[in-house]
């Protein structure tokens, strides 16, 4: 069972690295703030994004069908996959039929969700992740720890060691430019020899039947435009109604993600290359269920910018791997708890409900409310530890009985200050591991107030 607190405790224990990770992500949050504060109409843009997404989800079936119609008219083949397995089967079939043995892939969290890489590799197809961050974690055989900055948890010496092992770079040379140049050369060869390219989809436009992919590295385009086969995998919630609605999202996405005004490339794919083929795979994989749930439906409005994880004080100090879910942080926690509540029951509690995530979300998703609601749903469904439920029941019992509560407080104030330290600070006192308990006062406010009232009455009687 995935457990965030256990993973987080280990992460925090390496104090230097934990602080380094926290600072790195806070820096991204600050860049995002600067960008957001530079656009006077920023809050209006967020409202527009929320409205566009709500409108679209309300008519999702219509927009998907229009999308398919318009894409097909441009010579693009559209496939539908009900789940991750079917998605992988479709990809595999397309590659096998065309005798493709090497696939280059640009960033797609959807394909992580579907576990595409191992599926294809088990069937003899070489998959090269071409986004530099993804390539690094691929070579290290670990999952990405952030949806936009996959290798944010690694220091440059970690990358140097990995490249030395797999790409033959100089041992100990951790200069980012040097390492990037080597990766550039290596991946250029992969682009030139691949039989097919697979991209994710940032936005799919219903009105035109095309898809938009945003990158800084240019890897999606190299992968989609050199081989003859381009496959684009999209979660069905990526659809937006009109071309002009992109104006809102292209202004919000990069600024929210990294503080850039726009990514280096915002590619609009509306046809295959000359003599080539373009296929789009629309994937459900439990997205439809969100549409029926008022508490969680807004999670579908996510444009995968990562701003929520950059601002989350818990994510920054525990790292993406602590969440044990393809998408970490606030949006990952609500999606995970919705799809697999028992497995991910610790995630809605890996949160102080500070509300910062909701404020940075470009689509104004009610993230903190969703996490709060998940806690109620988990308790109802019996997925919370008995000890927790029990202590809450005891507290409620006390709080329903003011006189009993007063008495308990009175006893506590008399007894606790006199207890020897080892009775207060021991393994049962989790608070006391790192913090002193508050000083117990002689009287409660209520006692002081009652005394005050009594003295006032006596004064008045005189």
């Amino acid at each position, binding site marked *: 069972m995935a457990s*965030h*607190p256990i993973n*987080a*405790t280990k992460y*925090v*224990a390496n104090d230097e690295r934990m602080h380094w990770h926290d600072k790195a992500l806070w820096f991204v949050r600050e860049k995002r*703030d600067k960008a957001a*504060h530079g*656009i*006077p109409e920023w*809050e209006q843009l967020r409202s527009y994004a929320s409205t566009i997404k709500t409108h679209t989800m309300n008519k999702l079936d219509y927009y998907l069908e229009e999308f398919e119609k318009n894409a097909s008219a441009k010579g693009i083949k559209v496939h539908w996959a009900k789940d991750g397995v079917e998605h992988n089967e479709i990809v595999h079939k397309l590659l096998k039929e065309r005798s493709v043995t090497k696939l280059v892939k640009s960033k797609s969290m959807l394909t992580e969700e579907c576990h595409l890489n191992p599926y294809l590799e088990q069937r003899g197809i070489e998959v090269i992740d071409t986004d530099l961050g993804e390539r690094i974690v691929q070579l290290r055989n670990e999952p990405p720890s952030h949806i936009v900055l996959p290798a944010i948890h690694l220091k440059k010496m970690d990358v140097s060691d990995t490249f030395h092992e797999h790409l033959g770079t100089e041992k100990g040379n951790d200069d980012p430019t040097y390492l990037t140049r080597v990766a550039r050369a290596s991946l250029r060869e992969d682009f030139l020899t691949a039989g097919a390219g697979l991209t994710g989809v940032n936005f799919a436009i219903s009105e035109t039947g095309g898809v938009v992919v945003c990158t800084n590295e240019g890897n999606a385009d190299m992968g989609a435009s050199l081989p003859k086969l381009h496959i684009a995998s999209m979660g069905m919630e990526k659809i937006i109604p009109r071309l002009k609605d992109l104006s809102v999202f292209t202004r919000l996405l990069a600024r929210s993600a990294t503080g850039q005004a726009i990514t280096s490339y915002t590619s609009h794919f509306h046809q295959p290359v000359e003599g080539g083929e373009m296929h789009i795979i629309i994937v459900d994989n439990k997205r439809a269920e969100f549409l029926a749930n008022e508490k969680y439906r807004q999670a579908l409005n996510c444009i995968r910018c990562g701003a929520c994880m950059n601002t989350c*004080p*818990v994510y920054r*100090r*525990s790292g993406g791997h602590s969440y044990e879910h393809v998408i970490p942080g606030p949006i990952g926690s609500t999606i995970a708890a919705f799809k697999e509540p028992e497995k991910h029951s610790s995630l809605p*509690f*890996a949160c*102080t*409900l*500070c*509300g*910062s995530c909701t*404020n*940075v979300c470009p689509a104004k998703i009610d993230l903190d409310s969703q996490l*709060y609601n998940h*806690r*109620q749903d*988990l*308790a*109802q469904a019996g997925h*919370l530890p008995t000890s*927790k*439920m029990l202590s*809450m*029941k005891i*507290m*409620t019992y*006390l*709080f*329903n009985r*003011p006189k009993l*509560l007063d008495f308990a*407080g009175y006893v506590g*104030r008399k007894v606790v200050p006199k207890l020897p330290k080892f009775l207060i600070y021991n393994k049962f006192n*989790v*608070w006391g*591991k*790192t*913090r*002193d*308990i*508050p*000083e*117990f*006062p002689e009287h*409660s*406010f*209520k006692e*002081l*107030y009652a005394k005050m009232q009594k003295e006032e009455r006596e004064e008045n009687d005189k």
Partner: protein
Amino acid sequence: MKIGLFIPCFMNELYPEASMATYKLLQKLDFDIEYPTNQTCCGQPMANSGCSKDVKSLAINFVNNFKKYDYIVAPSGSCVTMVKEHYATFFNHDDIDYNKVKTSIYEITEFLHDVIKPENLNFSQLSFPHKVGLHNSCHGHRALGLGSPTELNIPYNSKLENILSLVPNIELVELNRRDECCGFGGTFCVTEDAVSTAMGRDRIQDHIDSNVEVMTGADMSCLMHLQGLINRENKKLKVLHIAQILLGKDK
């Protein structure tokens, strides 16, 4: 005008001084204040743990205790938020008593700022010649709007700063991260104690790096968590609830 004083459960038991400061602050302003003695807890610890169903009896008790007052004032942003945002589920949407309570409940500084208004307050007899760091507790800050969150592109505002700057000789210090969470988070402080501690330590260090002498805020729960760390680690930082500063307590 009758004010009902709402003192959070743990403040009643552990922080009578800050609770009394709230009472006396209001008393100084010549209000008719009452502390209904049957109050216990707003239910936030249970609700945040997923047991909001258990809160219903507490919510009903709360509304019954406080429905007769024109204003309800509490020295806690998070408890006020609990009543305003999470009680709706226990009442019909047209419940007169709850709707009255919901619209008349304030955190103390919010009350001073929005209802009394800064120009009608007089702290001129006080003097607090110290460097003060303001901890913007999340619920008060983001849910009640006590200050403008750094995430949003809206005009700068801080009700807490506006009130504190009325105190002569006070020096409000700018922090590196103006509104990052302290890590208390209710039961989070024990269920995710490693991250909670790390977050608290970072907040404390921010104040120390900014040469703060006194840390203050409008939520005793945050301050309790931070004070616990400060004491354990012997940090040179004094902690006072904002009501204590406004009442004239020196550090």
